[in-house]
């Protein structure tokens, strides 16, 4: 029985905008198990990033975590609710035990500091090194670990002197600098070209093995999911649609949304006239559809779907789905 490192329970995040309350995350619950790579997939705007940021209270105004629990099981057996910690306590965890890798390496590094300084700073703030100077020394090793050639000189480079792939490696380096237990990679390959994407994913996998860490991989690229993850959480419009292992999701998708999503991935072996897409658009989350949020786009929608919100049900061991058809 795998033990969870993070248990998310009934998480709700609302954004209080002038147009109205955007219910970005509604009753999201899932577990992240120790040592696995969990993929969080879904369309743009379905709340993947918001969920990941809510884990360490990184939601900015006008957003607010309305309710829910994020139980974090430390290595030493103690458990904390991350959403109840105060600023100072959550800062201890951010970047130290739970680290992030952001989507766009071009803007997630401060243009005014060398990459070595930025890695050193990440270590210094958590007391892993006495001062940033010592951290820059240690940064050389970290750059070597993320497979940057000639790390002794690269450590003194500014972000603009590096290519996109190199920058993303540096960002990963900042992420692993403090040997985190959970690494949250928020679309780490979106801004990179395809060959570099494969390298970066391989690197994340390797580092995960080496440090025995857990990875939460956020992506909308199902190819990436199949390559790297063991389990998948499919989100739609701020709610969890389906949870399952890679096999279950790819070979036996249950939720109509998952089915449609998989069909939308072009298969190079099949000849088709045009690309499949899911009809309709993501609903406006200020006034989400009543009942199942997917029903306006669902080919199987019935009267019940329009009225009742489907609960997550376990269909087979480890395979959960929120749909009235099951």
């Amino acid at each position, binding site marked *: 029985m795998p033990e969870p490192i993070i248990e998310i329970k009934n998480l709700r995040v609302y954004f209080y905008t002038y147009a109205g309350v955007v219910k970005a995350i509604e009753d999201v619950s899932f577990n992240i198990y120790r040592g696995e790579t969990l993929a969080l997939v879904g369309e743009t705007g379905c709340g993947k990033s918001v969920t990941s940021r809510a884990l360490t209270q990184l939601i900015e105004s006008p957003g607010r975590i309305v309710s829910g629990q994020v139980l974090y099981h430390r290595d030493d057996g103690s458990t904390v609710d991350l959403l109840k910690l105060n600023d100072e306590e959550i800062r201890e965890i951010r*970047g130290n035990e739970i*680290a992030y890798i*952001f989507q766009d390496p071009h803007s997630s590094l401060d243009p005014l500091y060398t990459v070595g300084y930025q890695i050193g700073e990440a270590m210094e703030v958590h007391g892993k090194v006495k001062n940033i100077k010592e951290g820059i020394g240690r940064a050389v090793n970290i750059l070597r670990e993320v497979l940057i050639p000639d790390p002794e000189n690269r450590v003194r480079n500014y972000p603009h002197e590096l290519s996109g792939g190199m920058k993303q490696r540096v960002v990963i380096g900042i992420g692993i600098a403090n040997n985190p237990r959970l690494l949250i990679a928020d679309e780490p390959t979106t801004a990179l070209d395809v060959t570099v994407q494969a390298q970066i994913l391989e690197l994340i996998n390797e580092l995960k093995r080496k440090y025995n860490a857990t990875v939460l991989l956020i992506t909308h690229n199902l190819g990436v999911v199949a390559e790297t993850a063991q389990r998948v959480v499919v989100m739609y419009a701020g709610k969890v649609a389906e949870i399952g292992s890679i096999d279950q999701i790819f070979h036996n998708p249950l939720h109509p949304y998952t089915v449609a999503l998989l069909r939308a991935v072009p298969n190079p072996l099949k000849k088709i006239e045009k690309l499949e897409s899911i009809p309709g658009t993501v609903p406006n989350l200020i006034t989400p559809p009543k009942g199942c949020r997917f029903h306006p786009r669902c080919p199987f929608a019935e009267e019940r779907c329009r009225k009742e919100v489907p609960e997550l049900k376990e269909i087979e061991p480890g395979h959960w789905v929120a749909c009235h058809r099951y």
Partner: protein
Amino acid sequence: MSEKVEELEAREEYEMTILDRVSDRIIDAFASFINIFKKDWRRRNQSKIKEWKLMAYAMNRSPPALLGLFIVIIYIILGIFGPYMAPWSYDFFPVNYNFSTQLAPPGSTYFLNVTTIENGYIVHYTTNIHYLLGSDVYGRDVVSILLAGARTAFVLDIFIILIGPTIGIILGLISGYYGGKVDETIMRITDMFLAFPGLILAIALSAVLPTRIQNFLNAHTWAQTLMLKLFALHARDVNNLGKLLAVFVALVIVWWPGYARVSRGSTLTEKENLYVEAARAVGLPTRTILFRHILPNIIGPILVMITMDFGGVILTEAGLSFLGLGAVPPIPDWGNLINQGSQYFPQAWWLVAFPGIVIVTVVLGWNLLGDGLRDVLDPRTRRSLEFKLKKKSKGGESSA
């Protein structure tokens, strides 16, 4: 090896003038100076040094900016050494010894029969006093007062710019970063300050503050000595400090709101960058994010504003002294000199004209420098300047 190649490239691309060589020398000297303290600094910061040199080249191509820089350097030198360069002390009143030295025209010379008490002894001596730019009501040499007044203006200038913008920048950063209620509160207070015209507010404050400040000074001797040293005044002027410092406090209070606005605006755009969120995700405390990551990224326009305001402070301060607030005689002050002169204008035109020219020159100098700095600091205009440089050298090649 690579260093040499880079140097060659630089030589080929840009036509070097004497000024370029001078600025190169200065920057190289500065780099070697730092190199003494920080090992290997020059090699590690090669690109930074090259960037500085390019900035200097761009600056060298802009005569107004150079003129501004020249004026500003002179002003700073006079601001520091002016009182010691003055031929006559600011509180030496020739009118006591020869009544006709009052409002003496420029270029005149008078004979003085001086009787003073020095170290308890009565001393008699005779001397000639030459008024290059005329004299004021007390027969004081205008040149001497202008030189000594440079210190007053300079000290006020530096400290107001040091304190006012600092307050403004800190408030702006906090306001822009936190947003919401914090932002509303700070910005509404800023609006209240901006709603009053700065000069009016400063007048009101400098009318109210002097006695309080004077009381504080009288109670604290260390503050007295510090201020006397700063303004290069003699001990007997202690009782005149209150009014001078009232202007200082008033201007500081008036000077921060603009900076709060500008830095808030820049912070709002800068904090949207992913690296700010990344810094939060790494677990950096807010103050580190604000001062180490956001501030250096927004400092460009603020730096230009500061340069321009060096002139603005001089002008406002002179304006207040002209209205009779601030420095009182015998404290040497440019605005005060004009105030005196206004009563004898146009007969004693030199009392208005020369301080006026000095003020205009200094303000103009700072503005020209600020303008030039804006062009140099803004990457877009600098690139166009550098582009022009390259073109020039190509033209030179074809003609040769």
